[in-house]
């Protein structure tokens, strides 16, 4: 089998149809079978959440910038899809718009730029060395083989350390990007961020963990049935209302 040189690979990539990977509508089914056809959900391009004028201006500027080349964005998409695939009822990284989230974070944090650009280049070089093409242009099983060697921090092989750091970083970004979406909340089963009246750990949970509230402690705690009665104290600092 002929081994492609780095230059030839780039040339063939340029000729290959990188079909519309960057633009896709919400709900598209992602596929990691063919990198050239990968699609993902789009994220909003404007936000409103209590920003100052200076903050609004900065975010607008970030949205107007492009950092990644198309090849880099596709590589990020393929990696995110491997890390958290979409073949799951709660969706995966691509349904959560991960490539666009990574792009935004990289523009927001200058220090992220080099590790990701360099990491992608490292991964491509490794793929060329082992399989004769860039990461996104080798077969799915070859891609998984490349990930297997850098997905575990306990691997001590010196020549893999840069790849291991990069993969860990991509795993962090993928998981944080997914779990901070509605799909991620659902996957986790998160309950919170809503007005409520906290009145202690549920009894069933206390029993499961073999812990209990001490009566003396509970006496110091709020009686939620009286929370709306205006506080009054006697001269001895005792709450009497």
């Amino acid at each position, binding site marked *: 089998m002929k081994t492609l040189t780095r230059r030839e690979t780039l040339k063939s990539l340029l000729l290959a149809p990188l079909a519309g990977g960057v633009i896709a509508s919400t709900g598209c089914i992602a596929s990691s079978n063919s990198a050239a056809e990968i699609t993902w959900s789009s994220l909003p391009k404007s936000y409103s959440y209590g920003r100052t004028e200076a903050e609004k201006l900065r975010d607008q500027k970030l949205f107007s910038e492009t950092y990644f080349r198309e090849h880099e964005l596709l590589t990020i998409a393929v990696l995110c899809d491997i890390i958290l695939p979409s073949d799951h009822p709660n969706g995966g990284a691509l349904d959560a718009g991960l490539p666009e989230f990574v792009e935004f974070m990289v523009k927001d944090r200058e220090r992220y730029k080099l590790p990701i650009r360099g990491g992608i280049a490292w991964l491509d070089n490794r793929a060329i060395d082992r399989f004769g093409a860039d990461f996104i242009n080798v077969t799915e099983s070859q891609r998984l083989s490349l990930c297997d060697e850098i997905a575990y921090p306990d691997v001590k092989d010196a020549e893999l350390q840069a790849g291991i750091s990069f993969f860990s970083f991509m795993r962090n970004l993928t998981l*944080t990007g997914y779990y901070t979406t509605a799909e991620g909340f659902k996957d986790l089963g998160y309950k919170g961020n809503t007005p409520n009246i*906290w009145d202690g750990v549920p009894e069933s949970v206390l029993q499961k963990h073999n812990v209990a509230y001490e009566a003396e402690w509970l006496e110091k705690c709020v009686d939620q049935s009286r929370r709306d009665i205006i506080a009054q104290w006697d001269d001895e600092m005792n709450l009497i209302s």
Partner: protein
Amino acid sequence: MAQEQYDIIIVGSGAGGGMATYQLANAGLKVALVEAGDYYDPASDEQRTQLRNPWESPRRGASTRRRPFGDYNSCIGGWDLDGEPYTQKGDTDFRWWRARMLGGRTNHWGRIALRFGPLDFKRKDIDGLGDNWPIGYEDVKPYYDKVDKLIGVFGSNEGLPNDPDGFFLPAPKPRLHELYYINGARKSNIPVIPARKSMLTKRINNDRGVCYYCGQCSRACSIHADFSSSTALVYPALKGGQVDLYTDAMVREVITDDTGRATGVSYVNKKNGQEQQLQGRIVVLAASACSTARILLNSKSDRHENGLGNSGDHVGRYLHDSTGAGRSAFIPELMDRDIYNEDGVSGMHVYTPWWLDNKNLDFPRGYHLEIGGGMGMPSYGFGFSANQYNEFIGERVGGYGNQLRDDIRRFYGSRLSIDCRGESVPQWGNRCELDPTVVDEWGIPVLRFDYKWTDYEIDQARHMQDTMEELLEASGGIVLGSKPGADRDYGLTKPGEIIHEVGTTRMGTDAAKSVTNEFGQLHDADNVFVVDAGTFVSQADKNPTWTIMALSWRTSDYIVDQMKQQNI
């Protein structure tokens, strides 16, 4: 056009300035409140960050330079502000936090509201270090009592000798990880009591709401159920019509006349860069310890050639911050837990006040312990090192694919953390001063810091590390990371990082050894007062805010009284 003459000009709208504004305006005085930042009200939907989901932010709550505690944190400010540099002397690494908004850094603090105790005002009597305050707990107690009732603080009366009781609202019940901590502390014979924090677990008036337990005080409360100076003090004061609020107004200096008394302040209007002045009978500085020192040092005149209040070379000296160190643990028994809403109030529901006698220890001052953990809302950083605890349960760290979902759920809410906050010993040599060569974007000379921790703080940090390790293990935890040793000063935070700077304009009876008298009144100019933490002689192992407000109220009463007597 004739300039309006104010009775009072107050510089800074945080804890000290807010309280002085509220008291002096209610006393019928005409007040100008001057704030370097913009107007802010979390009840306005345009400024609200509370109860938003992480995906409403493109960075999912990640920190930025303008919001170092996260994109949803309400406090606009930081250690690194555009156009407002500060410098360091030698190898000093001081971190200077500034808030730039109405309410100042009360938009940021953890609402931990601890009274200083009787011992905290007289430390020199106990260990011979530093100085005593010119006042004692009995002088401040009536004001602590009034602050409790006006502002609201939950807690419990425990009868502790140096952590005084108060007029408390009832405490929230502990969360699950806090019950683990309570059990651990009991095993180690270390006390643990309900936290003392300024959130309304019960109604205190008809203007402010009652806590609905979203755990997001750091985002500022849209129903005003947590304390910030703006929500609890400035808005009510503005309603009375006695207060003119100047925002985006950066005070350059206090203007004095030939007799050395203040006649007003000059400030830069940040909206247009213009220099403007306000005239007033009395100037009250509440810009925060270091900013107030900077304004005084920049207020040079023939009568005050080293800066206002600085005839004794004390302005900027004795600067000190709280010490800090933190550690966390993985609690295997909290793996695979049932998921329910335990947001509670923001931060801890339980804490450990200082419990030992330094007489028996090799360092002079104490610290308290703050407890963290629970099933918080995912935000930027959630899922980082997703399955790092696998190493403790015999499974491999790393990997990819849907197994990561199980790892995330398995370890969610299984961490317990402790943060220590302690008292340092004030030093003459630890200071901020004007840098002779550097100015900010408005041409105002900036501060230069000169600060070193001493062995007192480093030895205290060593003790903190031993305590945290013991308590985390007693709570059923596997302590994470390596224990910092002498080469890392035992994990001691950098000065300024805890954001409790105090001492730069300390109070005292001897004008040669202090900047103000016990009422925050400058020895060198009787119509200039300081009501921020600059007047603190020592910091205590407590957070400073409650004491700032008690002393500001005390000073306000004194000002009204002195004006009535026509002494000022």
